[in-house]
């Protein structure tokens, strides 16, 4: 029974240590900088339009076929305000299907789509979480503000800062 006494001692010593759990809905643990939440679209502050041109490369590469998009001529290009000839007209991501694999971000040539830190998007309806362009851009702006996002083309070679 001596080994059992040892076991009792182990649990007893643990009793007087600090609990390691967090009270979830009240207390949110911080996520890492690289955390891959749901993908969102980025907003180009300088021009005032999304980075996304609706080129569909992410859609072709998505393993679960959770996105769809449409492209249109960019009105700002005609006015000479933007360098983008085409711009996204509509974009939809079904967050219920998305598996957060980061492939869309990797294949994107325009830094237009990023994995946000948003991960608490539960709904009660199947397919009830389809995000359209305005919502995606809204979430994207939030994410940009949260992490101080810059397009990768601008910070080439610059390393990501370490995370808490």
């Amino acid at each position, binding site marked *: 029974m001596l080994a059992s006494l040892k076991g009792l001692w182990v649990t007893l010593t643990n009793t007087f240590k*600090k609990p*390691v759990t967090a009270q979830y809905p009240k207390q949110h643990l911080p996520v890492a900088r690289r955390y891959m939440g749901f993908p969102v679209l980025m907003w180009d502050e300088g021009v005032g339009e999304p980075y996304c041109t609706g080129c569909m490369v992410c859609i072709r590469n998505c393993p679960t076929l959770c996105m769809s998009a449409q492209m249109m001529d960019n009105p700002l290009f005609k006015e000479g305000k933007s360098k983008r000839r085409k711009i996204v007209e509509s974009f939809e991501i079904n967050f219920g299907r998305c598996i957060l694999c980061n492939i869309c971000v990797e294949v994107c040539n325009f830094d237009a789509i990023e994995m946000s830190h948003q991960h608490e998007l539960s709904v009660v309806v199947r397919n009830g979480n389809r995000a359209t362009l305005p919502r995606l851009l809204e979430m994207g702006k939030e994410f940009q503000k949260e992490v101080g996002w810059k397009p990768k083309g601008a910070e080439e070679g610059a390393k990501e800062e370490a995370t808490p």
Partner: protein
Amino acid sequence: MLRDLIVITIQVFALVTALTAVVLSLVWLERKTLARLQRRMGPMVVGPHGLLQPVADALKLLVKEDIIPALADKPLFWLAPLVVFVPSFVIWVTIPFAQSFAVRNMELGLFFIVAFSVLSIVGVVMAGWGSANKYAVLGGLRSAAQLISYEIPIIMVVIAVIMLPHSMNLVTIVEGQRAIPYALLQPLGLVIFLLAGVAEVGRTPFDIYFAESEVMGGPFIEYSGAHWAVFFLAEYVNTFTIAVLAALLFLGGWAFPLMPEATWVGFLGVLVKAYLVVLVIFWFRGTFPRLRIDQLMSFGWKVLIPLSFVNFGLTAAYLFYGLSRWSLALASLFVTAAVAYTIYRRMTWPARATAEQRLAKARAYRRVETTDAR
């Protein structure tokens, strides 16, 4: 006559209320204790530090739909919770909390308790059979075997305790411990009583008949709502009974040296001791894995029952030859330690030895490998 009836009704009502309050506190205490053992927080939301959580649980259980399986044996299914519940409450009629603080102080109090505590087995087996569920049947059969075998060591230990003050009256037994608690005279008895008591109420490491990972709740698998709540209540009342009995029989109850003899002090003393024993039971639950049914039986029949006879024999020798108290205490302690060491030696020792051997072998193999590579 009528006055007696009213008094008894009030007393019983008070008892039931008090026990329900105790059960609620135990539920909270268990959840918190286990949480702390596991470095969690436990219930924190309902009330300060989750104090009202058991109340919320109880309310939830009462309003929950009570499902009865279509193929269940309905009379058995309905009666089983009551058959488990009533004996566990009836016992309390004779348990004193202070010198003159019991519903009925009986001369054969301990006999009454032991006799009634066996009855709840019937209820568990009824629940197992009546649920029309194979897991429940398995659990019911297990419980019958387990509970009956573990009655014997308890009874033997209780007899050894009775021998010391020559009385079955709990008040007399406690008063007999004014000088020295029986836990110091019979440490072996206390250990056996605790182990067998834990088995009797079916808590880990002896929760075999409703082991969640094997028979998924055993006899109680099909119960829900209020029916299940009754079982739950009975389980906690039984746990508390074992704890209070341990406090009364071994830890000196309300009688401890150098304390005022006021009733409320005694009452508090019993309560504190009982809760400490309960904490130990919860601590066991947080630490040990459970045994298998055949191991449980062989532990009961081959270890606990012989040991309880040894305890009985030691006490008898002490009384017959009029030996000193210290000799009984030391002999009892020695037997306890020897048995504990034997079990350790037989189980853990060989395992440790083989583990060392194997590691040495694996390390030797690695050394050859690395020299070859170079």
